[in-house]
């Protein structure tokens, strides 16, 4: 009941922002509102996709009472590895095979970095904040070291890397990836034993231990998934920007955490939902788009976002 109310409230906030965006949207030459043009709406979805994907697994992490600060750095590692694998690929195999191998390689490495986070959190029992802060620094270092501190550019020719970029920067592919990931993670949280365990552990870890739940294993999986999705976001980033960039993804973890929190997930764990996080991500995306369409200074944009974050959480707090 309370849960449903909280969700209704963030939905209400989203509706309000969309209405406001429509209302103040500048008009195109034909008199239609630019905000409502299909191109603009899909742009919004594309723009939120990377943070959106990362915030799905971040929701799981936060539900267990943890936090993952390393996702931005893991994204950087993934984009670096993707670009390296593609630009150095031999010509033996088919393009499809090479691309698939490069993606699998980068995503696996990202998931492994996440698993390392999870293993330390679960077994050494250091606070997740500290563990992922450390790997945020360390993994960023790894990405820079591997790339010798340089961007790995992908051209526009007919080679494997260029082919990869032209396909994976398609709006449909990017938005589709987000939609698929969202569906999978929604099912995972709402319909599986794993999801139930995630919520139970965050709600009351002592009670979870007394109920014999596999706490360590669940945590390792949760952080692995967080790494994995940051890796997927990294692959998409590579295509979108035509380069592997070891400096990519700075402060992405904060945007992802903001989306989760605006979506009504409690930072102390146990309470929250994937649908809430999606709504939270949309709120941020529509807000950014609205402000940019109206040529609001990007610094002012940050200040407005700050207010929105606090407001969103205050409203949900007052509700419960």
């Amino acid at each position, binding site marked *: 009941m309370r849960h449903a109310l909280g969700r209704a409230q963030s939905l209400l906030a989203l509706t309000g922002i969309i209405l406001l965006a429509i209302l103040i949207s500048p008009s195109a030459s034909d008199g239609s509102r630019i905000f409502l043009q299909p191109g603009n709406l899909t742009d919004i979805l594309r723009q939120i996709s990377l943070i959106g994907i990362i915030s799905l697994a971040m929701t799981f992490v936060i539900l267990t009472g943890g936090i993952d600060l390393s996702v931005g750095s893991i994204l950087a590692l993934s984009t670096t590895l993707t670009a390296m694998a593609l630009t150095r690929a031999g010509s033996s195999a088919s393009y499809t095979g090479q691309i698939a191998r490069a993606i699998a390689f980068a995503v696996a490495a990202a998931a492994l970095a996440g698993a390392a986070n999870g293993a330390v959190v679960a077994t050494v029992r250091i606070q997740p904040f500290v563990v992922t802060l450390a790997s945020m620094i360390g993994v960023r270092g790894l990405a820079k070291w591997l790339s010798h501190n340089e961007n790995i550019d992908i051209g526009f020719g007919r080679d494997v890397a260029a082919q990869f970029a032209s396909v994976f920067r398609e709006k449909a592919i990017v938005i589709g990836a987000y939609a698929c990931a969202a569906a999978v993670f929604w099912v995972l949280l709402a319909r599986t034993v794993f999801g139930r365990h995630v919520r139970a552990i965050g709600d009351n870890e002592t009670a979870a231990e007394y109920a*014999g739940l596999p706490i360590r294993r669940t945590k390792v999986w949760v952080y692995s998934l967080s790494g994995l999705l940051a890796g997927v976001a990294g692959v998409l980033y590579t295509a979108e920007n035509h380069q592997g960039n070891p400096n990519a993804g700075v402060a992405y973890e904060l945007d992802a955490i903001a989306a989760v929190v605006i979506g009504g997930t409690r930072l102390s764990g*146990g309470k929250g939902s994937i649908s809430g996080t999606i709504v939270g991500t949309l709120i941020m995306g529509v807000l950014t788009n609205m402000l940019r369409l109206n040529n609001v200074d990007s610094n002012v944009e940050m200040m407005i976002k700050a207010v929105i974050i606090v407001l969103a959480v205050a409203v949900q707090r007052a509700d419960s």
Partner: protein
Amino acid sequence: MNILEASAVTKHFGGVAALRNASFSLRPGEVHALIGENGAGKSTLAKIIAGSVRPDSASIAIDGRPAAIRSPQDAQRLGIGIIYQELDLFRHLTVGENMVIGNLHFRESGWVDFRRMETFCRPFLDQVGLSGNVRRLAGSLSIARMQLLAIARALSMNARIILMDEPTSSLFDDAAERLFGLIRELKGRGVSIVYVSHKMDEIFRICDRATVLRDGETIATVEIGATTPDEIICLMVGRNLTGRGAPSAAYPGTSDPGDPLLAVDHLHTSKLKDVSFQLRRGEVLGVAGLVGSGRSELGAALFGLDRIRSGAIRLRGSPLQPASPRHAMRSGIGLVPEDRRLEGLMMNMSVLENGTLAALPRMQSLGFLRAGQERRELAAASRQLALECASLQAPVATLSGGNQQKVLLARWLLLDPDVLFLDDPTRGIDVGAKQDIYRIIDELARAGKGIMLVSSELPELLRCCGRILVLCGGSLAAVYDAKEATQEKIMASAANLASAPEGAG
């Protein structure tokens, strides 16, 4: 004239009465014991006088004048200090800071002035015999010295009345001796002391009078010089209590012992010393003891929460070394913890989610939950338990204490362990729910399970159990057959009175 006069003190915690119209009076310069069984309300009464718990209603007079004690600050102004059992010190602050923080008698200047702090603290530290630097961290002191610090703090607040809540529960003998000396000294200076305890020997050594509480009511106030420990025990347990839950049909398991299900042999953990016993199929084995006697720790050892230092556990004849609750659970041992909110339930989750949590492995296919099976099985269990809730989707937080406890029991009914350790399952729940829980215990025993039942209520143990283990200080003090056991005998063993333990080990 009495320095403190409290009457008509009533306090409920979530619908359960902790104090009912209790009264208490204190003379200047006396040491007055507040005594009663676990849950009798003695700590609550002390906390109400010290302003840390607000009563539902109470009339309190200090020096004959009505006093409104709404906060610890109010109590401090009236000259009342309290030493909590769990010692409310800031372990990461220094000795001096602990004494001046929140102290209305120390004028804060806004700057930390160690010299002024030392000048202020020293006389009180000397009084309790605590030497050493005031700049030491409180956390670096031994428990005994922390307690002296807490007393010095109370003195520095000009306390004329000092309440001590089970002060010797974590002290060794010599430290307790020193505390008694200090109490006598304080008394000589006219300080009145309220001594909350259930240790009979201490009370008879240092107290002048004792007020006995039972079920939240004041039963009597007696002069220690004119009474005996046995008389006080009788007042504590109450003669008429046997009628409350008449020991219905004496448990059949005692006359017809089943197979040995669980055998514990010379078990040692950090809290238990050389505990041995056997649990048979179909037996309800009671575990009695005061708080801190090791009764919860026995469950912790069996359930893989405490490391076993030595000794052996055999379950169904094969050795078992429970490494974790998960391991114990898979071996067939269940535990319903003492504190259902902290250790049992997920308060943000629904009745259904809480109830099926441990049994999910058999309610899924390929990791996907089988919602229909979950609902069916929990609905069946909740019927068996007479669980009352608006719907199975209702948040467990909206249920009454008794129904919350039933959700926890449902979790274990669905898992169906051979041995179930129930740690004070009826604490703070209403009479109807208690009866339901007794019925379930009987049913489980009849189905051949082995039940261990910890309880603070002796009539409950006498009603439900075939045999009763009595623990004291981590050791097995006695084992009674329910037929020959009486509340007096059990209390005497639990309080480690002279009467020889029978059949121990």
